[in-house]
């Protein structure tokens, strides 16, 4: 399924950070949702700022416009404030993209677990993310760090508990 670009993507001013505050707000909101939906579509969980500048999201070759690194940083900062992004390193070159927040993932996983009547059973993390049973689920292929955070979120809600198995981690659902 190819990615559907929003109308703003082909609007040249979209790639210039607007000085007018109201316009800028709307622009940034649009950018945030575009970035997140693109990452969701491509199943990207991490982004490198340098690479991002060349990625089709921030660089529309058809209208020959691309975002400057400064503007990308502004957008990333917005995402971070909303909780959808986390910097891996201090220099802000790589980041984790959470187009779904851990709590949301937790909810989805728990729904699947309870729907299949698998509460009170134990799973390894690998089973959840790469098992045959979960192949059609959205969280299939979820990267470990993200999975772990989602389960931690569930743990806080007392819906799960993370346990350490021999050489890997597992989780028990309640």
């Amino acid at each position, binding site marked *: 399924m190819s990615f559907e670009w929003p109308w703003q993507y082909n609007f*040249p001013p979209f790639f210039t950070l607007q*000085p007018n505050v109201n316009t800028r707000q709307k622009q940034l909101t649009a950018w945030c949702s575009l970035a997140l939906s693109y990452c969701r579509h491509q199943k990207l969980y991490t982004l490198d700022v340098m690479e991002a500048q060349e990625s089709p999201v921030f660089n529309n070759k058809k209208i020959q*416009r691309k975002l400057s690194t400064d503007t990308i940083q502004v957008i990333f900062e917005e995402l971070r404030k909303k909780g959808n992004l986390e910097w891996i390193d201090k220099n802000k070159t790589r980041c984790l993209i959470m187009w779904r927040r851990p709590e949301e993932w937790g909810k989805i996983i728990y729904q699947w677990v309870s729907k299949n009547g698998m509460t009170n059973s134990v799973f390894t993390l690998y089973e959840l993310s790469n098992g045959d049973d979960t192949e059609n689920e959205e969280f299939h292929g979820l990267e470990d760090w993200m999975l772990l955070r989602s389960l931690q979120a569930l743990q806080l809600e007392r819906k799960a508990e993370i346990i350490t198995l021999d050489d890997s981690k597992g989780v028990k659902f309640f």
Partner: protein
Amino acid sequence: MDRFVWSSGLLEINETLVIQQRGVRLYDGEEKGKMDVGILLLSTHRLLWRDHKNHDCCIAMPLSQIVLFEEQAGGIGKSAKIVVHLHPAPSNKEPGPYQTSKYSYIKLSFKEHGQIEFSRRLSEEMTQRRWEHMPVSQPINTSTTSQAGRTRAVGIVGIERKLEEKRKEMDKNISEAFEDLSKLMEKAKEMVELSRSIASKIKDKQGDITEDETIRFKSYLLSMGIANPVTRETHGSGTHYHMQLAKQLGEILLAPLEEQGGMMALTEVYCLVNRARGMELLSPEDLVNACKMFEALKLPLRLRIFDSGVMVIQLQSHSEEEMIASALDNVSEKGSLTSEEFAKLLGLSVLLSKERLLLAEKMGHLCRDDSVEGLRFYPNLF
């Protein structure tokens, strides 16, 4: 060493010191002189040496005696030296430390270094040969050679000398003239300080000044150009002159403003008005002050200052909303516009058209596209 003569060590008129170096010993050829270590001085005319212990012992030699010189690098235990080859001494030379010498060269031994700079300066002086066209008056003037030494206006050297003198005269005149000006400026500063202090005293109503005199003094201040100190900041104040000027401007500018679409940059107004006046031109400051009074005088013009600092005069009837709405229409019609295209479309100056587009952007009607191609404005679809 027999080229040296005893000297008082004083520099003559027109002779200037170029460089001096202490810790120098003089050698007559290869032999160490009976002189000790001393200070070597180079002037525009002579090479002088003074004993560092006995300051009265001073000898000098004209630079014209020097044929050439060369540097001799130092070694371990040996200081660097300059070897100076000399012309034979003139027969009428005055007495010096040595009557005769079997060498026609001397050595300058730099015990405390400094030979590099010294030799550089020496070579400069030898190239410039300033002693040839700068006559020195010698107080002990017995020999005829010094008479001949007085340069006459012959040849290129004479011309150069005359030019130099003329330049010096001019220099002197200019600095004398400006001397008065700087004195005047100082006095003016004092006057301004004085009037300011009195003005502030009036403001505080301190001092023994009666009401009558206060008013009189205020009018003096006004005529001198210092506005009423109490109400200086308020809008209605200003000198009589500015008020009259504002009224005059109100009449002159109506027609051009209509023509230009109701708005003109202040620089254009300035050019227009001064061209019309011909004589008695306005200063920019007067123009701005007069324009600031438009509103107070209920004239149909307004001075307006944009965010970017650009100042314009516009008709009061000129409505900004209309302008922006029409700007939006224009941009939507063309899809997008740069300020140059907009200017061409409306017949405005580029400066004013940019201001209008920026204003429309500020109000949220337009958005900008900044790229290598330039700055374009689009209708704000966000």
